[in-house]
């Protein structure tokens, strides 16, 4: 079965581009523009990897991280964020995220990271 990836970012283009690139690799991808419906979806079903933006209106990336870890300790979370928030982010999320990328994210690197993340879930 294909591995399942969830993308949460409040800019549509980020999710759309990620979806196209990751589907090319054979993943099943769902994208969300904000965390609320994403978390609702997560309660229905598990994903192998959740890629989320850190700073979002309403529920932010850190809360997504906490919820995911509570629901599915095995699910890997990859955090992406604007470059300026890098330091704050690194402090805040020590340990719990699988990987971390400042935007713009090189898609090739994101793919490699996801590939490693799903390999760990086998």
């Amino acid at each position, binding site marked *: 079965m*294909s*591995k399942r990836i969830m993308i949460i*970012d409040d*800019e*549509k*283009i*980020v999710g*759309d*581009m*990620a979806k*196209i690139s990751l589907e*090319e*690799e*054979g*993943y099943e991808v769902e994208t969300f523009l904000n965390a609320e419906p994403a978390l609702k979806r997560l309660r229905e079903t598990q994903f192998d990897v959740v890629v989320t933006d850190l700073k979002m209106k309403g529920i932010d990336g850190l809360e997504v991280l906490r919820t995911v870890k509570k629901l599915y300790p095995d699910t890997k979370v990859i955090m*992406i964020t*604007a*470059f300026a928030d890098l330091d704050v982010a690194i402090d805040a999320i020590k340990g719990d995220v699988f990987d971390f990328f400042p*935007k*713009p*994210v*090189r*898609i*090739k690197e*994101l*793919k*490699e990271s*996801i*590939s*490693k993340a*799903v*390999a760990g879930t*086998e």
Partner: protein
Amino acid sequence: MKNIMKKMRSIVGRRAGQRRAGTADVRLVFTSYKKILDDNGRALEIITDMGEKMSGGYLFDIIYIRKAYSDLAASVKVSLKDFHQLTGRRYPEMNSVFGRIDAHIRGLIDGTSAHRERLAVRYADITPEMAREMGGKNYHLAELGNRLGLEVPEGFALTVFAYEEFIRHNHLGDYIAALAEEDDPRRRHELRARILNGGFPPALEEALAGALEELRERSGGDLFLAVRSSAEEEDDVFSFAGQFETVLNVPSQIGAVRDAYRRVLASLFSDEAMAYQGRLGYSPGGLRMAAGFVAMVDAVASGVAYTADPLGRDQGVMLVNSAWGLGKSVVEGSTEADIFKVGKSEPHELVEARLGRKETRTALREAGGVEELETPEEQRGSPSLTSEQLAGIARQAAVIENYYHHPQDIEWAVDGRGRVAILQARPLRVRKNAPEAGGEKKLEPGQAGGPESRQDGGAMTSSHPVLMHNRGSVVQAGAVGGRVFLVSSPEALEEFPRGAILVARNDSPQFVRAMPYASAIITDSGNPASHMASISREFRVPTVVGTGIATDVLKSGAEITLRAEEDGGMTIYGGIARDVIDNQHDTFLKLEELYEFRRRKYIMKFITPLNLVNPFTDQFAPEKCQTIHDILRFIHEKSMRELIESSRHAERSASLKRLDIPFMDDIHIIDIGAGLAGETGEVVALEQVSSVPLKAVIKGMSYPGAWRKGGVPISLSDFFTASMRTGAMLEDVDINLAVISHYYMNLAVRFGYHYSVVDCYCSERSTSNHIYFRFMGGGADMSKRQRRIELLEIILDHLGFISRAKGDMITATVTNISQEEAVRILDQAGRLMAFTRQLDAMLTSDEVVKNYAHRFIEGDYELFG
């Protein structure tokens, strides 16, 4: 000889006091120049970074774009400030030129627009920055005429601002907003009715009347028009084929044209068009409508050309559908059409012809409008095109496809005189090949990890041999197949075959001549920030530079396939690897389908492309700048000229030193910064020169064989001609003089009766570097001098210079070259200066010019052998 020269000089009476007064100290100018190089360098780095981040290989957001662009604009502002200081504000208009482009880009980023006043524009005046406000159809038709030089009908556009004016004037904004709230068919209907009965705002009325009058004048009186929709589109991905109304054969009277325009606008809100827009993610009112007004072609035959089989079954063919009369019959399928299948590449041989029974044809009515007539019996079954016309259509279609790098759906018409006109070109959707038996290939996610597995996977999907893998830098990604065409000199570009893959040793901005026809470009050396590279990106020509081995491995005439990836990987296969080409196409299309992606990427059109290529034409002017890159290029070129002037008139203070060169007169040196090494006295030895360019040029001049010691045979009449002319020529070159720093040199030398100026900056940063070369004078009669200029032109062209000859003077320049390349070219320039010294007496006929040029290029400097 030296004594005679001295005498001549004293007679002519050149005095130091005649030097241009008021020139700033060359050291100050140089410092200022270097600062501008740094400013520009920073700006160009940001441009390269933006291009990379928005190439499709990165996830980026609006924060990135805002930040990157504001950094870029800040760099340009600093550069402009320093530029004004250097030139004494000689180009004050550059501020408003930048202001215009800057406002436009910021408008695009923030979704506002800067040119609301532009309502009507004639096709010949449409430039790339207007693309969005013209709508896709107008823009592309104008582009086919203006840029590719294809035959398109005369016409003009009413912009999207004209549409906005119309909507505002008739207070329709609220209706559209309501439609966006709730898409109700009755509301749609009412909106359409209001548009059809809407009044014309005075400004729009005036603009339309003016444009009509102007078109009538150009056409020599009244004419008939096709009034067509041209929906706003940021790029050329969606066709909107048949979604909106076209009104044919409209008399050029304002009343009739106004009505046709209203009908076109109303069609934006037709039921089908709204559904189509909805599917593409536009909300009602989100898409604005421009319109085109083009001269009707009284077509004998017309139809549609597909540059690929839309069903993806047949590789390597184009399909041409054709019927008698206007194209309406073909497009709407109201009559059977002839279907011709022709080869995709020259000579476009006919593969298959299926003649339709063309019972009816659409014809122009005399008073306007069109009618469907019965075709005369004898014409019904006969082919509607001659084989020449068919080949003509195929040739133009191939040019268009090559230009857009995507299969095209092209409307064309043949008029009463047999001439083919292009009426429209839009992207053609080609269905992906059906999967092979055994189902679709799908990698398991686990396997799909690193770059190795993917690229090897890519290579293995093709049965074709791999000729090259992961070499050089990818400038523009893409996958294409074609025949190799080796370009060893710029003249070869004249014979560049359409659709071929350009392979060359170095990159060159001169390749722009072949860009519309080249499928791909591959070079041995070159850098991804070069002018050529930005042009490649602009034309979306898949390009890889710096492979090191392309001209060795790729044989002229051989078929190859290049796959260059966004992430920098590349593979070249032997033969045409269809599987590779199609795969790439799909991914690209999917990305381009993202509305947001296209919208964001669109701003790069006003940043990266370089329009100011040749500094010797009147196109190289402030008002011709259309992009940020153009502005930077202009600043660089003009600053460089300022520096050259300043060096040429450098104050010769006590610090003047003499470089002792065994085979020629001393070169006097002004060192303005680390051009000489160690302690030096008044006389400097060759080993003490540390200036990179001066070392290179002296090395060239002293190349064995290039320099001929002793006198050069010269005829008595040549001698007298020379003597008569030297006075004026000596104006600036009374001694050999070099102004140098570690990376800079301005060298003025005199050999016999020849005077050369070589100016060069060659640092580690390619974008800062240039070589400027000027050669003039010479003893011998005019015909010999002209032959010499001709010879120099051939050789300089070969070295990659852009040159201009005027009388017996030639000026040439090359910019954006690596230090290594600069040193190589300077070495050649040194040899050339020595070589030409012998020439005058030898250039006895036109035939020998090419011969000698060739011998120089081959490294044979022995002219008296």
